Each structure stands twice: as structure tokens, then as C-alpha cells.
């Protein structure tokens, strides 16, 4: 009897387990957010969320007349409130685990973005593998409202484009929240963020935009945003951004322009690049040595050059050295003079090399940084010249 009773009780207890997972969330109840934007509002923040419209991205089943993503906005005093407030407009709960980009509006960036980032580092749902981007001359909300061709999900377009431009073109930087936060708190390094601008105004907001073969409204990365003390202080142009990538050893592959010794142009492909930044304190004066080693290939020749000769290659190597060194020097000068923000991590280099001196320097590093002496050494090796030896342009003249 007791045996049967206990068996019955255990069976009943098992029923408790059959009710399913406690924190289950069905896919059709989630609004998968791929992009989130934070702007300054009168009181607090305006949060814009780009949510995937699941019916429209399934291949072959889309109705074609609805956008693949929808954007919701809400304004509240804190970001968390704003995100929750979105449920008053959206049918689904905002789910942040698949976030690709976090966009900070320019105004908020200029007034200080640190406070806006806490929720993203605290919330357990948000991961750390998305990129943080600044909306240049516009609001984050405008960036998230632009529809893009090829990639149905604009946030994915932003993510992938940033990834590939960093790999192949260099003047952009993929910064994740973790890197941003550790740069914020570091005493010897200030953060930068990639900047994205909206081209074509509101043209990109409508589905019509991507019906054109060449959309009139689109998003474009334009250099890096320099931060100082948590606030945006200015932008680097494309060339300076490339200099930043060289100094911080972010260059994986890029193309550099050089002028030929006797007029004309030449493009060199950088296939690998390695930078070492060393700090030193000489007579109480901090000094930075930047050593760059690059390997390049000849990619395009628009002048008369005898590429079969070793002297020519040696000459080109010299040219490339000067070119890269000048990019780096202009960047450093610009940042030292205009922004006074140690985005290169020179302070950290000094800290590593001479901790005792750093303890004295760090108190007013902000003022010391613009006066830091920077020595640049570039060593280039050109190994290959492509599939042809001399350019056919040379042949024609004979």
C-alpha cells in the first residue's frame, strides 16, 4: 500500500517538472533587436531599437511590401525604462542578445556617453560582441532608420561593413563595449569610436530607396570619433584614421598611395603590418617610439618604372616608409594639437616601461600628452609586384 502510494506521489511530483522551463521565451514572442541607438532627449534618453520583422526576412516568403526591420522609439529618463517602454508600441518584448550595433547620437556623445553605457554592461541579456558606433552629425535614430540594399537587416550591414572595412581598408575600428569601457577607465588611453554618417537625408527611410539600383540614401563610415573624458571632442578624417590604425596595430590589410619618383602614381597593398609602441622617459621627458614593420605588394602602377630592377624596389620601399611615417606623424600631431586626447595609449606605454615616472606623469597627463616626443620608424619590405612585371604602359611607347 505504502509502496503504491509513494509511487503515486512521485508521479504527481513529476507533473511539476512537466510544466516546462521557467524562464522560457518563445521565438514568436521575442522582438529580436539588432541595432539600438541612444540619443539625448530633453529629460534623459531617446532609445531607438531596430527590430527584425521575422516574416519579411524568411527567404521566398516575404510579402515584399513591408520593411524587413521596424524601428521603435521611446523616451525615458533611463535607458532601461526606455527599452521596457517600447512594449507599449511593439507587440513583442525587445530581446537584446543578438544586438549587432549600439549607436550613440552625436549630441549625446558630445555631452558624455559614459552614463548611458552602464545598462549595457550590467544587463545579463546583452552580450559583448557588438560594435559601438557614433552617429556623425546626426542622431542615432536617423542612422537606424536607413534601409540598406544587399543586407536586408541594416544593422547587419553596419556590422559587416565595419568588419570588412577594418580588414581591408583600415581607417575604421571595430570597438566593442568591453574595449570602450576599459579605455574609459584606463589612465593612459582614451577611446575612439568609428563614426557613421547618413548620406541622402531621409531618402533612406523608405522602402523605395532600395528599389533603386543605386540608393540615394545610405550609410557610410567616415573616420573615427575621438573621445576625451567620456566626451566626443572631434573626428579624424580618413587618412588620420588610418594613421590611428597603424599606431594601434589594427592594420591588417590596406592600400596606400605613393607617388612615383618621376611623377605619376602608384598604389601599394599592405599585406601585413606590425606596430610596436615603446615608451621611455628621458630627462623627465616622456618619449614614444613607434616601430612599424610592413610587408607590401605592388598593386597598381601609373608611371614609368622598371620593376624588374632591385634598385627600383629599394626606392619604392623608401617611398613607402616615408609615406607611412608621414601619415603617422600627421595623425599624432593633429591629435596632440587639436584634441589633446591620448587615443594611442602612449600613457599606457610609458606606464609599462617606467612605472615610477608614470606615477608622477599621470597626474597631469592631459597636459603632458601634447608635448610628448614621438619618433617614428617604418620598415617596409616589398616582396611581390603582381602578375606582370613592367606595366604595359611602358611597352606602348616603344
Amino acid at each position, binding site marked *: 500500500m505504502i509502496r503504491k502510494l509513494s509511487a503515486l506521489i512521485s508521479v504527481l511530483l513529476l507533473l511539476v517538472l512537466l510544466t516546462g522551463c*521557467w*524562464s522560457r521565451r518563445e521565438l514568436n514572442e521575442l522582438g529580436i533587436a539588432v541595432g539600438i541607438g541612444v540619443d539625448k532627449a530633453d529629460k534623459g534618453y531617446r532609445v531607438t531599437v531596430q527590430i527584425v520583422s521575422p516574416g519579411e526576412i524568411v527567404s521566398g516568403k516575404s510579402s515584399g511590401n513591408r520593411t524587413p526591420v521596424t524601428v521603435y522609439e521611446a523616451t525615458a529618463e533611463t535607458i532601461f525604462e526606455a527599452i521596457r517602454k517600447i512594449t507599449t508600441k511593439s507587440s513583442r518584448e525587445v530581446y537584446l542578445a543578438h544586438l549587432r550595433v549600439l549607436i550613440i547620437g552625436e549630441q549625446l556623445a558630445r555631452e558624455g556617453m559614459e552614463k548611458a553605457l552602464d545598462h549595457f554592461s550590467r544587463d*545579463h541579456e546583452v552580450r*559583448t*560582441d557588438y560594435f559601438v558606433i557614433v552617429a556623425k552629425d546626426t542622431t542615432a535614430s536617423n542612422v537606424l532608420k536607413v534601409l540598406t540594399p544587399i543586407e536586408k537587416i541594416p544593422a547587419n550591414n553596419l556590422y559587416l561593413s565595419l568588419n570588412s572595412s577594418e580588414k581591408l581598408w583600415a581607417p575604421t575600428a571595430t570597438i566593442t563595449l*568591453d574595449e570602450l*569601457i576599459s579605455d574609459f577607465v584606463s589612465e593612459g588611453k582614451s577611446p575612439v569610436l568609428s563614426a557613421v554618417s547618413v548620406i541622402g537625408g531621409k531618402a533612406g527611410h523608405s522602402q523605395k530607396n532600395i528599389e533603386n539600383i543605386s540608393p540615394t540614401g545610405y550609410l557610410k563610415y567616415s573616420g573615427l570619433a575621438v573621445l576625451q573624458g567620456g566626451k566626443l571632442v572631434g573626428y579624424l578624417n580618413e587618412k588620420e584614421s588610418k594613421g590611428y590604425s597603424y599606431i594601434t596595430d589594427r592594420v591588417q590589410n590596406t592600400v596606400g598611395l605613393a607617388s612615383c619618383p618621376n611623377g605619376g602614381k602608384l598604389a601599394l597593398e599592405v599585406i601585413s603590418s606590425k606596430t610596436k609602441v615603446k615608451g621611455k622617459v628621458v630627462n623627465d621627458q616622456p618619449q614614444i617610439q613607434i616601430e612599424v614593420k610592413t610587408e607590401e605588394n605592388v598593386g597598381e602602377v601609373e608611371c614609368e618604372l622598371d620593376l624588374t630592377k632591385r634598385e627600383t624596389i629599394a626606392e619604392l620601399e623608401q617611398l613607402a616608409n616615408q609615406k607611412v611615417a608621414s601619415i603617422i606623424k600627421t595623425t599624432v600631431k593633429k591629435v596632440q594639437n587639436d584634441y589633446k586626447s591620448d587615443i594611442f595609449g602612449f600613457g599606457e606605454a610609458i606606464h*609599462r*616601461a617606467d*612605472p615610477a615616472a608614470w606615477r608622477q606623469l599621470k597626474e597631469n597627463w592631459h597636459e603632458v600628452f601634447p608635448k610628448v616626443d614621438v619618433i617614428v620608424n617604418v620598415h617596409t619590405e616589398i616582396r611581390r609586384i603582381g602578375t606582370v612585371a613592367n606595366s604595359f604602359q611602358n611597352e606602348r611607347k616603344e
Partner: protein
Amino acid sequence: MSDTVKLSLRQFTILILLYSVGTTILVIPAPLAADARQDAWLAAIAGWLLGLVVVALYVSLARLFPGMTFTAFLELTFGKWLGKLLALPFIFFSFIGSSIVLYYLGNFMTTEIMPETPIEAFALLFAALLVMGLRLGLEVLARTAEILFPWFILLFTVLALFLTPEIDSQKVLPILEFGMKPIIWPALNFACTASLPLYVFLMVYPVSFQHKKKAGNAFFTGVLIGGIFVVIVTFLSITILGVELSAENLYPSYALAKKINIGNFIQRVEILMAGMWFLTIFFKAAFYAYGFITGIAQLCGCKDYRPLVLPCGMIIVASSFVVYPSVAAMSEFESTVYIPFAITVGFLLPLLIYMAGLVKKRINHQELQGAGTDD
């Protein structure tokens, strides 16, 4: 008590190893990085070596009472009432320890993985497992450890290997920026979390390994190898997350596991890595609870500890809900009270008892000799 329990040396080593890795691996990089900055890994090494001193004390202490549990030895040496009184702090520590470990597990789950599930659900399920394991006895626990150990090694190796591409070794520079001084406190913290709780094995090891010198070596080996895992995790945490993020994260190792991304293909595997911690946390909780329950059994003069497992398990679950009212209370307790508390109960008291035991042994010896000459 159960004199029949026989553990192999291999099992014992594994138990010690898993126990000392325990909760340490999940949380220790945070306090280490907060105090020792980029030298956190050095502090881990220092704490690891400090742990060996502690083990040396436990091994020589255990040599005084082969075939007995620690509490039985206390009663024998100090008399019934003083002995029981001296056993109380140890029992209390084990009790608090097991509640804390249970709280850790629940808190980890509710913070990082399932925030809507009540913490009670995790504590109850896990405690059910504990009660089952303890009722089945030490041998079963030891064999479980032996079976699960390769999985622990596998998960750890995968974690460490997959993270190597992310390492930025410059982050450990400059080494010893402020000298040895800032390392001492975190090293103590490390030893208090990883090694001092090992005293619960005084309830196991002298009983199961009578007169075996090799068991002492197994004790050392377990702590040595266990320490390596924790040192590696601390190093990875500093070189990958950096000092600030390691210090700020409640669970830096979990944050580390989130970083795994091999070719955009192997990613989001952190929950598999969490399996590793469930393993080690289980053994930590099990042996804390074992220390508590066998201690109580000895105190009450029970022949077998098993009938006490269920009620004591229930008490542990209940106290795990109240042991820390909030996460802030946890970090405050750990950074202020826990270290002196652990040193007092886990090191100073055993040291005094050891010295008292030595004196007593000599007196006994002389009395015996004296008795011999008198006759």
C-alpha cells in the same frame, strides 16, 4: 564512524583538486585584480604557494590521529566537553561554507543565466543532489569525482585553448609596479578561498588512509594541480579582460568564456563552460556539508552520520537563502570578515591544536615511560 570507507589515492587527489578549484575558479580573479591590479596572477601564484603551507599543517596535524576524525581527536585530547567546544568553530565554518557555496551557485544562475527563476529552485535541486550523494557515502562521491574529472579537464582545456588567440600579454606589464606589498592581501584571500576550506578533509583523510604517508603526498598533489587551474584562469582574465573588467565583473571566468569566438563559428559556448563550475562547485558543497554533518554526528555521539544528512541538508538550503541578504553584503563579507574568520578557524586554531596535541603526546609518552620504570 564508517571505518570501512576506502578511497584510492588517485580518487583522493582528484577530490582535493576539485574541492580546491571549487568556487575559487569562478570568482577569484575579481578580488585579485581589484587589489593586485595587473599582478593578480602573481598574487594567485603566491596564494597557491601559501596554500601549501596550510596543507603541510593539515597533514602533520592528521598524523597525530591516524584512524580518527578530527572531532574525535579533539574529544580524545581535550576531554569530552572542551573537545566538543573546540569542534564547534569547525562545524560552524563548514555549515556557513556549504550555505555560501549553495548561495553562490544560485546567485550565479539567477544573475547570468536564468534571472526569472527563483533562486530557491536552484538551491533545492542542487541540495537534493548533495543529499543523495552524501547518503550514498564517500566512496560514491569519490568515484563520481573520478568519472567526472576527465570532463572537467576537457572543458578547462577547451576554454584555455580557445581563449589563447585573445591573449594580449602586454596587459600584465609593468610587473610588480608597487612591489610585493599589494600582493600579500590578495594572496591571503586566495589561500583563504582555495586552501583553508581544505580542513574539512581532516574528517576524511586520517580515517581513510591510516598510516599512509602517500596520502599526504596526494593531498599536496591535489592542491598543487588545483592551484595551477586557478592561476591559469587568473592569468587569462588579466590578459584578456584587462584589470578593470576583471575587477568589476562578478563572475570574471564566465565573462571570459563569453569571449570565445573561433572564426565566428565556435561562439556562445559559455554555458558549456559553466558545466565545469557546476562540477567543481558540487564537490566543494558536498565536502563542506560532509564536514558539517559528520561534525554534528560526532557532537551528538551518533554512530552513523547518514540519518542526519536529510535534516542538515534542509538546514543548509534554508540558510543559503539568508546567508547573504544581497550581493553587496556578499562582497562586503568576503573582503572584510571572511579572511580573518577563515584564518582563525582554518589556520590559527588548527595550529594551536597541533601544538597542544604534540605536548599531550609527549606527556603521554613520558607517563608511559614513567610507568615502565616504576614497575
